[in-house]
Each structure stands twice: as C-alpha cells, then as structure tokens.
C-alpha cells in the first residue's frame, strides 16, 4: 500500500507522515475524546432530528412490509409474480442478495482480524450490525416464499413420532444449516465485541435506567486484564469460527442453483463466484452505510478516506473475480458444446429479458471496474457513494438474471413463459430495505457504532502503542 501521496503530506493532517499513507485515525485523539465522540451519540439527550425523520420514514416501509407479509400469508404466494415455469422470483433473488450483503461484515470482523488489518477496527462494528440485519431480512424470504409458510419448520431436523426427516440431499436443507449457523455466529460475535463498550456506556451513563440497561448488557465487564485477555482470545476463536462461514454460506447458497440440472444454474463456477459476488456487494453496502453515517455523525476522524480507499480496493479485487466468473460462464457455454448451455447464454444476453444481463454487466463490471483503479476515484466520497449504490443494484440484478433467465426458457419450448413481478413483490422487497434501515437506525442510536475499545488500542499510550499498528492486547501480553 505504499502508494505515493499525490499531494504534500505536510499540509494534510490525514496523511501519515511516516508511511505517507492515508491515516486510519485522525491525529490528536485521546481516550477521552474517543469516548466522548462515540458514546456521545448513544448517551446524548439531544437526539438529532434527522434520526427521527429517518426512523419514521423507515418505519413507514416496515409497516408496508408487515401489511404485504400479512396479505401474503392470507392469500398465498400467488399474489407474487411467480408462476410456471418461473417458480422462483423476487423472494429468492432478495434472499441471495441480502445474504450476500451480510458477507462483508463477517469478512471485516473475522478474516481481516486474523490478517491483522488494523484499519478494520473502526468499521467492523457497524459492518457486523449490517450483517445481522441483512441476515434478518434474508432469513425471512425462504420462509415467506414457500407455499405453506406455517409448515416451514419441516425443513428442520426435528425428531418426531412419524420418523419423517428432511431430505438431506436437497440443497434447501443445507441452506437451513448454513444460514442458521451463520446467523448464530454473527450475533454472538457482534454482541461479544460490544461488551467492553457497553461497560463504557454503563460507566458514562447519567440516567439510572440507562445505567441499568447497559449494565445488564455489559455482563459485568470490569475491564480487568483478565477480562481483556479472555475477550481477545474469544475474539480470535470466534473469528476462526466465522472465517470458514464467509466462504461456506454463500457456497451452500450457490448449491441451490448449482445442484439443479437447469442450464444457467448447473455450473461448477458458482461457489467461488457467489462468494466473491457476496463480498463485492457486501462492501458496496458497507460503503453505502458508512458514507452517510460518517457525514451525519461527523465520524470522519474514525472512518477516514483510508477506510474508504481500502474498501474500494477490496471491491476492485472481488469485482474482478466476479468478472472472471461471468466471462468463464460465457466461455464454457460456447466451449462445452452443449446446446442447452449455448442457448441459455444466448437467451440470457439477447432474449426478452436480455436487458437485465447488460444492466448487470454495466453496473457490476463496466462502471466500477473501469474506475476503481484510480486512487482519485477511490478517495472521492461522493463518487464512492454513487458507485456503491450502482454495485448494489448490479448485484441484485445478477441474482435476478441467474434466477429468472435460467427458468423462464428452459428445456421444452412449449413451457416457455415470462416473469413479471407484481406490486406485492416490490412492496416486500422495498419493505425489507425499510426494515434494514429501521434496525440500523436503532442500532446507531442505542449501541456504539464504532468499537471504542478497538479505536483506543490504536491511540498513543494504549497497551498496543509502541508495537505495530493494530497489535492487540492479547498479543502484547503473549
């Protein structure tokens, strides 16, 4: 990362004078200032008006979501655009998209921790929160999408007198395990990471009720060295557990498609290409969240251009893998000599829903991968924000193209049909976006969105100071 600064470092306090890189943390912060800044958001008695506006707006969409889900359960999935042959539609697209988004959070909190990427410290908390809320949104879709949601629990291996079990050869049965494991680990990791910060909040809180609540949440955290040591060990262990999940969850999700015999689904490239796509869209979503929050709560000191730059680099890398996936699909459609594959690809590109394919190529490949090579683009906050929205849209369309274009014109031309989403499809999708925003707004208001303890480790005078950047207490002790 030893890129040359393109302007004089002496003039810019955000450039590290030693390495010449963009700083991970703005200079001049002390333990107190960090606590004041971050805990202040939670403990303030003057909640910003904008937050209320946001919550009400998002809440409106949550209501819409509840209404649509109620109607869905009352009437059946027929209110959606799913039909024959396109028996899967928005619900599965949204499920895969949301699960994919979650992946960035786990990657940041687990893999980057193991790789000792110190810069992750300031963004991992809300990235993890994003993961959990994305999994909440994603997890609802498989249940809502089935014909009889009240029997969805039959996918679980529950012992029963009938001795009826799930059919374990089905990728949908694997999904249950993949997603539930993922949700559990993510919640535990997220909550555990917040325990020291809850302790700080308990100590700083004025109101007895606030004190009591954060006291309960902090699980008796006293900040003793022993606590810290166990905390760091547990973090590493959980990171170790979560790391394979980053790869496995979307791999299993990709099996939903790859195991089927349908051209366009039946592809061995799906697992790596799905994982890369998940991380790609996840980082785009982190940017989508980080950029406005950083601005709204004036967190530029903690979430610096360095973070944005690094995330954009990750996107560039994963985006290239995704591009490779696309091109290999096209190549093998031709090289396989299979008429099915060839027709599927031809239809995907030039069939009636061909616009979807070109839209995803433009949004996922053409726009981001042609621009993110330039540091100027990567450090332009407005550009990155727009770009993150573009990639999110593009990745949604990628799933749409995979699900729909493979289905609507398959083997027997007599069964060819089309897919048209209904207003209920849109309402439920937009409803989950509202739910996600709603939960996220609650999170930024009531929990420390940036881990104070981990920021403080990077400050001069911390236990970690004097060592390398990002060295943890546990390592210091060891």
């Amino acid at each position, binding site marked *: 990362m030893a890129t040359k600064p393109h302007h004089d470092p002496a003039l810019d306090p955000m450039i590290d004078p030693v390495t010449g890189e963009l700083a991970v943390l703005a200079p001049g912060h002390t333990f107190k200032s960090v606590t004041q800044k971050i805990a202040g958001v939670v403990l303030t008695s003057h909640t910003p008006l904008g937050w209320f506006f946001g919550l009400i707006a998002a809440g409106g969409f949550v209501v819409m979501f509840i209404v649509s889900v109620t109607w869905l359960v009352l*009437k*059946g*999935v*027929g*209110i959606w*655009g*799913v*039909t*024959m*042959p*396109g*028996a*899967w539609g928005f619900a599965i697209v949204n499920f895969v998209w949301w699960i994919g988004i979650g992946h960035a959070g786990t990657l940041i909190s687990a893999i980057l921790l193991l790789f000792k990427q110190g810069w992750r410290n300031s963004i991992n908390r809300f990235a993890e929160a994003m993961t959990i809320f994305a999994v909440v949104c994603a997890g609802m879709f498989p249940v809502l*999408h*089935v*014909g*009889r949601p009240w*029997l*969805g629990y*039959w*996918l679980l291996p529950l012992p029963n007198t009938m001795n*009826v*079990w*799930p*059919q374990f*050869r*089905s*990728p*949908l*049965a694997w999904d*249950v395990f993949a997603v539930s494991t993922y949700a559990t680990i993510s919640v535990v990791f997220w909550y555990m990471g917040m325990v020291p910060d809850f302790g700080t909040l308990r100590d700083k809180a004025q109101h007895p009720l606030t004190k009591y609540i954060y006291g309960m949440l902090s699980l008796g955290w006293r900040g003793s060295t022993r606590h810290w040591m166990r905390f760091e060990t547990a973090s590493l262990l959980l990171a170790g557990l979560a790391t394979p999940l980053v790869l496995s969850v979307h791999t299993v999700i990709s099996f*939903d498609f790859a*195991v*089927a*015999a*349908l051209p366009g689904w039946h592809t061995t490239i799906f697992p790596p290409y799905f994982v890369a796509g998940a991380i790609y869209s996840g980082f785009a979503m982190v940017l989508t969240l980080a950029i406005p929050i950083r601005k709204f709560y004036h967190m530029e000191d903690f979430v610096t251009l360095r973070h944005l730059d690094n995330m954009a680099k990750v996107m560039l890398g994963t985006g290239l893998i995704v591009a490779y996936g696309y091109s290999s699909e096209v190549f093998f459609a031709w090289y*396989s*000599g*299979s*008429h099915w*594959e*060839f*027709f599927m690809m*031809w239809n995907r590109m030039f069939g*009636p829903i061909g616009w979807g394919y070109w839209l995803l190529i433009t949004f996922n490949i053409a726009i981001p991968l042609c621009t993110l090579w330039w540091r100027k683009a990567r450090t332009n906050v407005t550009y990155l924000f727009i770009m993150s929205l573009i990639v999110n849209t593009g990745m949604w369309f990628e799933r749409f193209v995979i699900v729909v274009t493979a*289905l609507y014109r*398959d*083997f*027997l*031309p*007599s*069964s*060819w*049909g*089309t897919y*048209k989403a209904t207003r209920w499809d849109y309402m439920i999708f937009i409803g989950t976006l509202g739910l996600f925003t709603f939960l996220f707004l609650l999170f930024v208001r009531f929990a420390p969105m940036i881990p104070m303890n981990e920021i403080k480790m990077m400050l001069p005078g911390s236990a970690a100071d004097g060592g390398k950047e990002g060295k943890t207490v546990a390592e210091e002790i060891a």
Partner: protein
Amino acid sequence: MVESTKNPEVVTTIQPAKLTLAEVQERLAGKRGKRFWQSLDELSEDPGFEQMVREEFPRQASEWTDGVSRRSFMKVMGASLALAGMTGCTKQPDEQIFPYVKAPEDLILGKPMYFATAMPFPTGAVPVLVKTDAFRPIKIDGNPEHPMSKGKTDVFSQASLLDLYDPDRSKRTVKRVGGESADSEYGDFAVAFQNAVKATGNGQGLWFLMDFNHSPTFAAQWKQLAAKYPAAKIVQYNPVYGDASKMPAAQYKLENADVILSLDADFLSSNAFPGFLPMAAAYAARHRYEEGKTMNRLYVVETMPSVTGFKAEHRLALKPSDVVAFANALNGGGAVPGEAQKFFSAVVADLKKAGAKAVVVAGPQSPASVQAAAMAMNTALGAVGSTVSYAAPAALENSADFKQLALAMDGGQVKVLAILCSNPVYSAPADFNFGINLAKVPFSVHLGQHLDETGVTASWHLPEAHYLESWSDTRAADGTISIIQPLIDPLYPGAVSSHHVVQVLLDNATATPRDLVQQTAKTYIAGDFATGWRKALHDGWVEGTTATAPAAAPAAPAVAAAAVPAGGIEINFKADSNTFDGRYANNGWLQEIPKQVTRLAWDNAALMSMETLKKIGAEETQLIEVTLNGRKLVIPPLMVAGHAPDSITIHLGSGRKFGRVAWGVGANAYELRTSDAPNYQGGATAKTVDTYYDLCVTQVHDLDHRGKFAQSDLEHPVDPNGSFSEPGHEAMERGIIRYATLEEFLKNPKFANEEEGEPENLNSTHTAMREVPDKETSFFPNAWDYGKIDKSTGLLQNKWGMAIDLNSCIGCSSCVASCYAENNIPVVGREQVKIGRKMDWIRIDTYFEGDLHAPKAHFQPMLCQHCENAGCELVCPVGATVHTPEGLNTMVYNRCVGTRYCSNNCPYKVRRFNFLLYSDYETESLKLMRNPDVSVRSRGVMEKCTYCVQRIQEAKITADKEGRAIRDGEIVTACQQACPTEAIIFGNLNDPNARVTKRKQDERSYAVLGDLNYRPRTSYVAGVINPNNELGEA
C-alpha cells in the same frame, strides 16, 4: 370482449337486491359449522336476504375483472347459491349423518358402480359409461361395449360431467308477466301451456324450436302431437349446422380409405363432426406404420388451421370462397384458384389412383355445393359403399325451417312458441332479430339448463334436467339406439325434459318419460321386452338398431355453385373446439383447456394470418373492429400460422351474457352472422380500435408481445429455411419432436435415435441432443433396478410405464378433459391462466415447423414422465416427492411445504403449483362431483400427474384378492381411456407381452430430453408421414 372491461350489466329484469353479498358475507363472517346453519335460518327471515338469493346475477359480478378477488367472489357465490337452494325449495334440516339402516342393493360405500347411458349431442349421441360413487356420477367415459365408440370419448362428453354440477344451472320455473318475473311451479306452467295451445285450435301458430334431437321417443311423441294439432310446426335447428334438413347423412369408413381428401372437414377435432369417434380411430389405425400395411394419406383444404389440417400430409390454406371453388372444380365446374392448381392436380391424380379406396370428406356445416361436390366425387371414384355411405336424412312430421319460423314471428303469426334445449336469442342469425320478435310472441316457453339469454326473455322458463338426471333414448351417429337412464335424481327439483313439455299437450299428459321410453322401446327392442330392456340398459345400446348402408346411394343433389362474394375480407364462422355453439361456455374445464391449434384458453379471437394482421395494421394485443354488412364486432386479433389469407375465422360460442364462467368471455360471433351466409361471408372490413387486450395463449408463444415476437421472427428468420418462431425451431433442434417421411423411415428405420446430419447454422453446432447416457456409466447403476421379486407375492415387481404414439395423437384434448374430471383439477380462471398458472396435469404441446404461411404442426401430449432418475425428488427439502418401488414418481401433498424447487428442476415443466387457493371448497354442487379417490389439493401445494395412481391401487387390490398378477390392460389411465386413437398406452414394463412394452421396443421409440439422463418412464414413438412425392415433403 369489451364487456369484460366494463361492469357487466344485469340481464334479468329482477330488481336489484337490497342486500349485497358483501353484507351477507359480513353477517356470516366468523360463523361456522352448526352455528352457520342456524344463523342462516335467522338470516333467511330477512326479506332483503330472500330477495338477494333469488337474484340470479348478484351485483358483485363486477369483481370478475380482478383475478384474485374473482375467486373470493366465486366462493361467496357458492355460499349464496347453497342458501338459495335452501330458501327457494325445501327447508333443509340440520345435517346429521346416518349409516344406511337398510342399504340399497349393490351399494358398497367406497366401491364405484358403472352405468351405461348416452350423451345426446346434435351430431348423434355419445354412448357413455358413467362411474358413480354412492349414486353420484363422478366420471364419464366411453362405453367400451358400444359398436361405434368402442369406449372412446371426446372433450365434450368428458366435460359434460361438470355441466351436471354447474352451480349456475337453472333451479326454478320462472314466469314472466309484463317484465316482472316470479318463481312458479311446473304445474302452473302445464295448465297455462295447455290453455294457450288449446286456444290455437288445430295448432295454428303453435311452433316448437329445438336443437337436433335423435330420440325415437320424442319422434313418437311429436307424431301424436302432429296428429292432434295438425297445424303445429317444429323447427330443428342447430346454430353450427343450420336446419336439420340440411344436415348431411354421410357415414365414412376411413378404415377402408387409402387416400382422404377433406374439404374443410375437421373430422379429427371432436364430436362436432358426426361420427368423429369411429373416424378418428380408423384414421389413426390406418396412419400407424406397420409392416405390410398401406399407410393412409390425408389431404386437407381448409381456411382455419385445424388439428385435421395439421395431421394431414398435405394441407392447403384457402379462403372460404376458394374452398368452395376448389370443391366445385372437383365436381368439374370452374377452375381452382391459381396457386392451388398444383395441389389440385396432385390430389385428383392421387384420388383417382386409389379409386374406391379414396374418399372425399365434406364438413357438415360446409355449403351445399361443397357437400354435393364431395358426394359427386365419391360416386365417381366408386367410393360409395366402400369408404362412405349416404342415407337420406329423416325428417319429423310438420318440419319447418328456422327461417319460416322467423318470418312467422316477425309477422306476428306465432301464438305459442316452445324453445326446447336451445338458446336462439343468443345464437339465432343476426338478421332474424330473434330476441325482439320473441317478446312479441304471446306465449313462449324456454326449456334450458340455464336461465340464459333466451330464458330471461321467454314468458316461461323451465329448468331442464341434465341427461344424467332424465329418461330418454337417442341414436348415435351410426344410428344405434341407446337408452338414456338417469343416474341421479334431479339436483334441483322441478327439472324436466323435453318429453315432459310435449307430453303435457297429449292425451296422457302425466305419463313419465320412463313410461314413454319403454313404450317406444317396444318398437325397437326385439324379443322378450323385459329381458331386452334390461339388456339394453345394461349394455347401453340396443342390438340391431345400427343403421345399415342403403343399397344404392341417393343421387347427388344438383346444387348451383354458390356465387363468390366480392372482395374484402371473408369472415369464416366455425364451431369452437371447446365451447361448441356456446352451450359449454359456462363449463370451466372447457374454457380453461386450451383450444386446439391456437392454444388459446378462455376468450375467442379473430384468427388470421400474419399478412392479414399486417394489412389491418393491428398488433395482437390491440382490439379490432370487424364490420360485416353494417354489423360490428369488437374482438382481439390473433395470428395463426397457416391461416388462409384475406380471411378471418371467428369461432362461435363466446360472448355470452350469463353465468359466472361464461360472462364476458370472448366476443359473440353470432352478432355478425346472418341466415343467408352462415358459413362464411365476404366483404368485411376491419380496423383497429384504440383498446388493448391480452389474450391468454397458453403454449409455445405465451410471451409478452407475442405479435411483435413472431413478427420479428418472420423478418429475421432464425433458420435460413424460414422456421417459424424460436420455440418451434428449438423443439426441432432439441429432438423433442422427431418424425420422418415413410421413404426416409424405410431408408433408415432408426432415424429417431440417431443424430441428424451436419448442422448448418450456428445454433446447432452443438450436438448430442439425442444421445441417451448409458446406464452403466452412472455412479449408481443399480439405482434403476426394477427387476426384483416382490417378497409378499413372490411375483416379479411391477414397473409402470407409458408409451405415446405421436403418429396417432390428433391433438383433440380429450385426454386433458378426462384428466380434469378424474383428478379433481381446479379451474383457475383467465387471469391466472394468462400468467401461466393453469393446473392441467396433461397438456397438448403444439409445435409449428417450417414456413409461417404453410407450417406443419406437431402435437405432443406432455405429462409427468415419471423419471427413474428424477430431478424433482433430489431437490425437495422435505421429501414430499418420492419414488415408489414400482417406479412411480409420487407427490405427498400432506408433506409438501411448497418450495417449488421440484418444478424448477423438472425439465418437462409438468408440475403444477397451487399458488392460491384454487380448489373450490365452498360450492356445494361441485363437492358432489369430486372423485373420492383423489385428494383435493389446497393452497401452497405442488401437484402433478400420478399415472392415475388411484386406478393402479384399485387394480392391485383386486389382483391381490384374486391372488394373481395384474393383467395387461387392466389399468387404464384416465388420459388413455379417453383417447379416441389409442395414442396413449400404459402398462407394466416388466411384462414382456404388455402392449406398452412392445410399443417401447419399437425402433422409433424415443425419450424426450433423454440426454439429460433423467430416464423418463414415458416414451414417445416418432411419427411417420406418408407424403405425396409430387407435392414434395409438406
């Protein structure tokens, strides 16, 4: 058509109800079970409610426009009608279930009984064998012992079961005085009728109008009536064929025909063609290739592409007037239209070569000159007596033509008019102004199963008993008499038959139809009457009544060649392949089963060629206004590949104004049709209207903007040979349809399972579409072992399979209707079908091939293939679809949670999902109809063809009890049973002598999509056609 977008107006003159359905629904909300009934009693005391249930067309009919709320409307309707029965007739007691104290003889609950009877139909009765469960008819199939039908049925006879249970059936006698209608009793009517007729003296001004009736008993009754009232007149008229006197009485024996020429005769479609069942069977038997047998060859000259046209080796599309010219040319008069010359010469040469083994078939509704030409040609060929025989049509005493009646009505000379089993207000020629003139008739009575367009205009309406509820007798197309016996008491007390209405006027006015039939039967049952009567009822037909061919053919009538109408677009009127003349418009099955060739469900359309569509400047989604002699009809256009140029075909039987199913479906072609030109008329113009409407085309092309899609295909052909549309092209490319000409087949008998030669274009550079992976190359070669010995019986286990002969399939859809009836398949409605949610377990895939102007089409019945290596089973997360040891791929409805993954992984897309609550759980009458052996599927559950597992189980139980193996042919699936051509055969593949095994060993047998290694149990036998080399292939 346009009506469907507006709120339908109420036809009845009954005042709108004070209470709406919504209010009733509100009052009933939350009340169930026993309380439900009690609360109804309370409700029924409300005068507003009483009025509401009397009203035939509740105001909420407007909800029809929305698919989802329409269903809820239908549910409410069901409840309201159940209540209507309660308040209208007798008060029902609280329901209690008793076992039989003294069980009826022969009744074993759960064990069905079968009764032979016959379905009357204008072209001759269809002998049927009806399955009843606890005395409820639940399935209609052909009578296998009948000499004509041999157990086969068509789509109408299958679907007539639903007509019996139609919740919209007329339930009360209605009297209409001065625009006010009131419920009445049959007794009141009888008195009024007798008085009105007596007032005419000798019957002057007494007219009867009825559909074709083949009942000897009715003829005997009429003879008495004609004697009593010598001036009384009877008109036998069917909207499709016209007056009975003009109906040709030809009997074709296609089993003797080597060469067949059809002049617009759609004899492979349904019983709409007289003698369809024996003709289809004979055609198919002669069209199957067997060594040492001459295959027949079929030529068709027609306007609207029909299944017959597409089965033909050579088909010529001519506009209606040119078909007449073609026929006249055959008869030696005039020249054939220019481009048809080559076809004409080749056909004539081929016919002459075959001589007495050739036949020219004319349509029953064709103009008289075409009939005469066919007859003359057959006589010249020496075919009369060999492949065809003619009989003189028999007429009733005092017969008159419809036109005479219309004139008499117009002149006010009709005093009493009895309309029996006919709906002339809807279907009479437009120039008769029948509806207006009917109002002038002082006493008119309508007997019909529905309070329909005529029923709400006539001064009396009588509910007609369904044929399964009444006694009668009738003749099949071959003249064989069948006794019609009731299988159930009339569902709605007071329902009568035409025998009742005529008998009222005779001396013995109270004689029951049963007495009358017995009386007449004495004239045609030979030998001891009691024995003969029992035998006739048991067998379903009376021996010795089959018509014998007359020794000499009647001379061909001399008919002046019809004048060719000048210019403009010709409008061609045809009976609908599903709603016929409109009588089946309220039959949900028939509306939902896609129509032949066009695959259009619900609605009718202005069918035309691409050129005509372009000439009009319309697109398929844009409505057009057709003007013919100043009469206008707004109708959506639909392009049909192979339609004759400069002509538009409009099917009769849509645009009705009654009934929950029929209302607003399609446009009424009768509004354009006049008495002078009932078959076709020239000089029409068409222009676009600025309204858009999406037709519901169910297969091959159900894509948005189908018109544009096909248009662009035409302009940028995928195939250098001008292949029609991407789907058709792909069907060929993928080896889904395989066929060869006789010559090619003899050269290479294994053609169906070999790769075709070098592909020419880019799309087909990829190969291996016909290569079936070897079983041994699998990781699990033993997974498909079905050769085990069943431990419990010690016999070799069963291995079920099906073989479908594509050469025999004529695309008539009988199998589809049969499947609907057997398997309790729900009707989902137009909006649901339009977006692809039809629930048919078996469908007729239609693929077009070749040039858009002269395409070939192939029909392929597609149903669950019961793959041995089924993809659906692998991906179901709850194991709701599993394999049986006998190789059935079964659905466990109870276990299904509805992920629909199985459907995604099914390459045949034969699985059907209950996206909404499609099954009607509320309508009381429909509950009686259901097959008790098949589950009624609820919402959120996947379903599909089971190979009629209930029939398999029944046979297994029987065989088990008798300690033997199941015999070949003992299990017949519903589709197989209905198939008039034996295209479908089901059986045990482990039985080397089974017919299905033999058919599968045919070298032309192939698996559709075999290369996917799903190992389907259903296989297809590739077609062989026998083209005339002079005309080239196609």
